[in-house]
């Protein structure tokens, strides 16, 4: 089952040398092969027997009515598209096998291309005979991904500094609640967003206090915090918000802002630049977290504390304080993502409205291997799967929606079980630091 023995075989190349250790991993090619087989089974064995005609056509709408530059819709025939896609997938698999034989890691771009190929084929197959509003699908996917991305950024920071953050769900929910509350009371969504960040930081504060000060197991605190926040927000929702919905639960929503010029770029413009302020803040947050983690002193210290707290302590970094403040920061980021639910998506708070988004964000952290960019990509993939499911349920798809919704979770299990790539958390993540 596992390819574990093979992975470490030629490890000893140049002891002490600067070159990275060559590792021969067969996991990527195996995953590629599995997906290629799935594609072949779906496209050619299962096919679309429910459709009339020998070659149904999938239409992709590339422009919305209000766009300045109108692109003609793209039409793909089912037969030729699936054949081309499968051939390319086979080629990518062969390429991955060759790379692995030469002990070269399969690059991220190849995996991405492979995933896009599979998705194009899958979409063409699933929506054959119908029209797919591509812009709406992708823009919606980005919207759905927003809280997931905020959640996974917070998760990455927290885990990188050595504190497991199971409480992402609670931080999102707390943020959503506080955003609705303060947004309604002050009438300003910006105050609401700020309140959401404070709420997320508060949840983090409890996590940090218990985990760092009292050495309580981080997983237990995280799980309990989720229940606590759910209980508190539901209780306050019933006692405070429901009787006075006007005052407490009718925040003003963020408007979609179209950025001049950029929003007129064909295809990309409407997807990326006709969004709410929260999404623009998200772009900024992704960049800042990535830059901060890998290019600044703050990031270096943070990672040092998460990987080897004793060493960090030896060189004079205050491990406890670093952990404490960064967990708070992580909570603030996640809480800000929680504001998305009440200030951008729904417009009012509801019981348990995050509905597991925090756990998908956690999944994205792991699938993204504790790296902000990869975690963002993973969150986008999960958001895309969720949005694809709702789009396909409108056009009528052969795949039951439950299986699409299940996808992030299955993918995560596959990832943590180590079938795809190496899944290695920060070394000291989850371990309290007891100064000797």
């Amino acid at each position: 089952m596992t390819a574990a023995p093979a992975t470490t075989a030629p490890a000893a190349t140049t002891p002490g040398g600067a070159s990275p250790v060559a590792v021969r991993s067969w996991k990527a090619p195996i995953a590629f092969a599995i997906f290629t087989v799935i594609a072949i089974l779906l496209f050619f064995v299962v096919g679309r027997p429910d459709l009339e005609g020998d070659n149904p056509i999938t239409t992709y709408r590339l422009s919305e009515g209000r766009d300045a530059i109108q692109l003609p819709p793209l039409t793909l025939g089912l037969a030729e598209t699936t054949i081309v896609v499968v051939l390319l997938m086979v080629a990518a698999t062969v390429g991955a096998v060759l790379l692995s034989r030469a002990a070269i890691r399969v690059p991220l771009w190849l995996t991405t291309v492979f995933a896009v190929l599979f998705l194009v084929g899958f979409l063409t197959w699933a929506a054959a005979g119908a029209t797919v509003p591509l812009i709406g699908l992708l823009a919606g996917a980005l919207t759905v991904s927003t809280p997931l991305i905020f959640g996974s950024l917070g998760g990455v920071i927290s885990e990188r500094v050595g504190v497991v953050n199971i409480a992402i769900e609670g931080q999102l929910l707390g943020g959503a609640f506080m955003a609705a509350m303060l947004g309604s009371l002050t009438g300003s969504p910006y105050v609401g967003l700020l309140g959401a960040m404070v709420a997320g930081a508060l949840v983090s504060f409890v996590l940090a206090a218990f985990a760092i000060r009292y050495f309580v197991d981080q997983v237990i605190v995280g799980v309990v915090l989720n229940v606590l926040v759910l209980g508190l927000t539901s209780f306050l929702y019933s006692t405070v918000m429901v009787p006075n919905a006007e005052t407490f639960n009718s925040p003003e929503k963020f408007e979609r802002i179209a950025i001049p010029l950029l929003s007129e770029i064909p295809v990309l413009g409407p997807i990326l630049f006709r969004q709410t302020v929260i999404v623009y803040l998200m772009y900024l947050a992704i960049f800042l977290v990535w830059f901060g983690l890998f290019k600044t002193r703050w990031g270096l210290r943070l990672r040092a504390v998460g990987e080897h707290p004793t060493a960090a302590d030896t060189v004079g970094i205050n491990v406890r304080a670093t952990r404490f403040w960064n967990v708070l920061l992580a909570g603030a980021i996640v809480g800000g993502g929680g504001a998305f639910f009440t200030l951008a998506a729904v417009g009012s708070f509801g019981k348990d409205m995050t509905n597991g988004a925090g756990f998908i964000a956690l999944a994205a952290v792991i699938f993204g291997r504790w790296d902000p960019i990869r975690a963002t990509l993973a969150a986008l993939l999960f958001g895309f799967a969720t949005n694809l499911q709702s789009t396909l349920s409108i056009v009528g798809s052969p795949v039951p929606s439950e299986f699409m919704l299940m996808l992030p979770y299955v993918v995560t299990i596959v990832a943590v079980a180590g079938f795809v790539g190496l899944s290695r958390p920060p070394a000291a993540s989850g371990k309290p630091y007891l100064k000797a």
Partner: protein
Amino acid sequence: MSTTTSPATPASAPETPAAPRSNQIMKEILGGSAAISVLAVVLALIAGGILIILTDERVAETSGYFFSRPTDTLGAAWQAVSGAYTALFRGSVFNYETDRGFAIAIRPLLETLTFATPLIAAGLGVALAFRVGLFNIGGRGQMLIAAAAAGYVGAYVPLPPVIHLVVALVVGIIGGALWGGIVGLLKARTGAHEVIVTIMLNYIAFYLVSFLLRTPGALQAPGQNNPKSGPMLESAQYPSLLGPQYNIDIGFILVIVATIYVWYLLNRSAMGFQFRAVGENPHAAQVAGINVKSVYVKVMLIAGALVGLAGVQQVLGNFTGGFAAGLDAGIGFDAITVALLGRSKPWGVFFAGILFGALKAGSFTMQSAEGIPVDIVLVVQSFIVLFIAAPPLVRAIFRLPTPDGSFQWRKPAIARKAEVSK
């Protein structure tokens, strides 16, 4: 099965093989005194009371003129809290307000036991895994799969009386065991962290069961459009224990048996000894010749089976009219709090389950009589666990001495101070 560290767990490679953190935590929680448990419950009830006061309307009204007549506010606050907690008592133990005789007045207590039944079963499953150092957060998934399996047999496979019930029960338990076993297998074979796997399996089970519930021919009731199963056949339903006027059924006897079984397993059997050894320190257990990987698989199978018993209870005992995907009703997560409050000991879990059953049963009276939302139970429950999981905090609040290890209280005061301040 060799001693080489697998690539998924390189963290422990260079250091001395001390027991993982989860094992130490387990030891701490086991070692805590019963006093801490009681104090944690008291603190949580106080916290709940504060929440009730803060959101009470009369308190808010009277606090407007607090400084001119503070007694009004205090009186309103006292009324709010005492009203809430007496309602909790009436709803969970003994309804002294009824005048229809003892048989009716005692009904809340039996309601409590009914609510406690699935909590105890699931709590045992979580506690058993916890004793081996594994966090079984997958209660929801294991319950759902067990319920779906038992529900299918119970609703659609007609069998002779007694046999039907037994078959449905066994099939359900096997379902839960397999869903739990996946976790153990992944943990043993690939080192995948059980917390992540169980959380993810919860959602997979939820969507899987949702799919089955809306698919005709699978679990959906024939001729219906709702995502709901058909009613359980008469022969598969749990027989009532004390007659039709009480909801309590034979499931309560089953959880007593389960509690005794877990007690026997942990304290009297060879397998339980292995479990406890791995829970103390898996590295040491490995050296002593215990097959740690197979222990992980075994314990998750049994834990899944116990949680599965809770799922079966839900479909064959509580929702006999047919079940939907929300049948777990949060029990999978409540079970974690039950296991922690019960200090992962079988009888501790039993009584913790009854306490939380009482909170649940009473919360409905609290809602109808005092207008306090049932969600207060979640708050109180999570406070209880937070306080229990942090004995130093409770000790700090009540200024109790700090018995860190079995002998450390003998240390001179200065050494203790140094420890506290670090």
